[in-house]
């Protein structure tokens, strides 16, 4: 599904290049649950952003579902991205002015899904996440865990083939964090959604099937996880 070849990312500042990613080459297959780990500043988030097409690599080749992302024009890229990628953030990043239901509906609007289908999909997902009662609340009326659930619901509603999660549990208490990770695992196993998450937590990484260890922009280790749970 994802092929990265020799991805490099650096910022040039007054002639000095500061590298974020170096020679990253890897591939992620449909249905995998990959955790990217590493110390702060290792380039985890940058790698995730490149995967999510929010940033462009300075150099290298990125194929997403057989399409060469780097050479695509903006419109095609947004198209590809809308249809296949869902993003989940550490800080939830819900739109404050929108209600829960509206937040979830927003990606469908951009995807130009017809109104009736939108309504039914939003209702469906609210139901699945047990949030029907909260659909008219605004994000600041929810707890952190609930907000992240909305964030995940919003990522799922467009029926993506891959979810990219940047420390999804970083702001949550441990019980809520476990709920979220369980949800990811369920989505991965039952619906076959590919998941790539950035995490600091060994426990969270344990939910996945594979761990990429990043250090100073270089993949140091690429290991399969022994399923213990």
């Amino acid at each position, binding site marked *: 599904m994802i092929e990265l070849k020799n991805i490099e990312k650096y910022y040039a500042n007054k002639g000095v290049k500061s590298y974020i990613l170096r020679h990253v080459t890897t591939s992620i297959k449909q249905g995998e649950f990959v955790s990217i780990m590493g110390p702060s500043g290792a380039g985890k988030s940058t790698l995730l*952003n490149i995967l*999510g097409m*929010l*940033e462009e690599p300075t150099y290298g080749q990125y194929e997403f579902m057989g399409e060469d992302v780097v050479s695509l024009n*903006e*419109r095609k890229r*947004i198209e590809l*991205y*809308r249809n296949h990628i869902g*993003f989940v*953030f550490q*800080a939830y*990043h*819900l*739109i*404050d*002015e*929108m209600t829960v239901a*509206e937040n979830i*509906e*927003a*990606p469908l*609007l*951009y*995807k130009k899904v017809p109104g009736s289908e939108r309504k039914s999909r939003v209702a469906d997902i609210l139901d699945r996440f047990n949030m029907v009662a909260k659909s008219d609340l605004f994000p600041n009326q929810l707890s952190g865990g609930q907000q992240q659930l909305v964030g995940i619901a*919003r990522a799922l509603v*467009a029926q993506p083939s891959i979810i990219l999660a940047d420390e999804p549990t970083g702001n949550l208490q441990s019980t809520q964090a476990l709920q979220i990770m369980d949800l990811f695992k369920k989505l991965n196993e039952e619906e076959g959604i590919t998941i790539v998450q950035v995490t600091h937590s060994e426990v969270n990484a344990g939910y996945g099937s594979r761990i990429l260890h990043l250090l100073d922009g270089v993949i140091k280790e690429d290991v399969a996880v022994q399923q213990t749970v």
Partner: protein
Amino acid sequence: MFKLNLKIAFRNLLKHKTASLINISGLAIGLAASLLLLLYVQYQWSYDKQFGNSENTYHLMVNFYGTDKSITGTTPQVSNVLPLVLKEESPEIENISRVLWASRRLVANGQNSFKIEGRYADPDLLRIFKFDYLSGNPEKAFDDPNSILLTETIAKRLFGSVDVLNKTVRFENQANLKVTAVIRDLPPNFTYGFECLTSWKLYENLNGWPAESNWGNYSYFTLLTLKNGTDPNAFNQKIKNTIARNTVTKTIEAAPFVYPLEKYHLYGHFSNGIADGGQIEQVRIFIILALGILAIACINFMNLSTARSQKRAKEVGIRKTIGASRTSLIMQFLLESFILTIVSVVLAIVLVELFLPAFNGLLNTKLQISYDHPGNWLAVTGLILFTGLIAGSYPAFFLSSFNPVQALKKTIAFKSNFSLSFRQMLVIIQFGFAIVLIVATLILYQQLQYLKNRPLGYDSNALIEMPHEGNLYPKFDLFKDRLLNSRAVTAVTQSSGSIAFQNSNTSGLEWQGMREGDKKISFDLIQTTYDFLKTNNIRLIAGRDFSKGRASDSSALMLSETAVEQMGLREPLGQHVLFNGKQRPVVGIFADVLWDEPTRTLHPMAIVFNAENSDVITMRLNTTRNIRESIDQITKITKELNPDFPVEIKFVDSLVAEKFEHEQMLSIISNLFAGLSIFVSCLGLFGLSAFSAEQRTKEIGIRKVLGATITGIIALLSVSFVKTVMIAMVLAMPIGYLIMDNWLMQFDYRISIGPAVFILTGVSSILIALFTVSWQAYRAAKSNPVDALKYE
């Protein structure tokens, strides 16, 4: 999508109440101001275009040539015979009509009598202008010279009805006229407006002398329409020599030409034969003011939205990560600005309706918003689109360009040189405009005061005048005696014209020792009898006033100081001056009288004894008595002696005040708009300072923890704004100086621009700006640092 964006836009408006209030009120004020001005502009644009066929209607004018064949003057008035000759000679002319200047005419229906604006015109005038007839036939209205055409209001005032065909009106106490047509009231923006129209033939019949052909008397306006397909330039070429061919004496070389009536009002000023403006200059000033104020309001909007961009950056980032394209974001931000604009436009229309009466009073117009006119709705829609686009474009394009990753990480370089300097630049434009207006206002005010304080040379206080008419001619001496005996007045005089404004001049006076060219000196001319100096309180410098005791005084004259100086007379008293074919002794020298516009230099003046030419009776009220009682007494005496005419008493000081009307109006307008633009600019500054304080909450917190004082923090937050205003000042003041210096050039009598204006402008604008921003700075400085730092 649209519905959701709409909902969110409204939520945003309600959530950020201060910003919304600033945006909406600023835009509404800006829009209201520009709507008012544009209404006036439209009023000016539609001048003389109301009665159909205006594009084919022309004004007959005449160019005068000097000895070197260059055009020395242009006048819209022609002789009484030129239009007749042109009509006879030119098949191109469809209709042509002479029109007399409007004057107050007495109309009466029995005891019900009053004066109205009346004109005389040829029957063709009713074919040139398609008036709106309530009754009567324009083709036949003037078949009989003893006919009169009334407007609706006058018909109602005279007869209480508009159904008045064939009723009789007593006209000027001289003739009985039949009403042959009633038309709807004429709009005020019509150069040839009137309340009653009578035929040219009647003018000739009543006065005699206008019937005689006179090529030398350039007094009459003439309008004409040309047949379809006539090229006006070719026509002008053809009629060029008409005057020369028909006149024997070649003292004045003059060539007639036709000028489009549509342009006559706006581009009616000619120099060297070329139309070089007129009312259009005022219209241009108004358009610039309108756009300037609107721009200031739009800038507020842009600045506040971009200042808020940090808050909205997150939203942009999220929207982009969930699949929003840049276009959809631009549409969203534009939608928000359109909603704001629409709300503001509605508010602006309410404001316009509220202030229109006052504005009309100020400009002497009857402007109104016509809601049933589709063109106006189109214009308002256009205005909304324009304003919404201008106001919303910068935030829309700026905000939507954010990179989502950076926006979410809050690492966008908000203080990058570009965005800050752009915002500052906009503030500089706002304040620059406001400062130019303040400079203009102060200089206008100074000039106005300077003009008002200019000595008149007579005492306009407690001085009244009335028309000399009817029985007051044969009974003048009796009238004067009775007035003086009543002790309501202390002096009475008759004269050829009012003392308040220039109404007559003459050249060609001859005296001993005159130089070559002195014949061309133009003298202000007043013809009067006894007590003129006494009544008007004009200071006598040498000699004496005309005196009843001396028979020779009935052919004497007096000269002003300036006249003596310009004539080069060493010993003026006793000298003789030839005027109207008579040698007249100079009996008195009086101090200069400011008779012309107060902006002009003093002219030489001659006061000539002539009992035959009198239009005005002037009286000095007895100030030791109650003025109201005196006026009542004067009215009673006048009514007794001259019962056929209404008594019209005017105070000379209010007549003098009318001379300042234009400058006064400009002064009020500039005051108003300078105030508005400063206010709207400050609204914006207030909003900006609020956001700047908010953005720097953390910095302020840290500084306070480190021991900064409140004053120190206020200074820190205010200084950048004050700097911006100072840059605006430096840039705007020279512009203001140049504009106003240029404006003052049109006055002979003018102030010189001193540094005080600029010091005052500078100090006041900095104080205003400081006052505006320091409130927010103070609030930020007073806040508890713990609150500020807790959130990070």
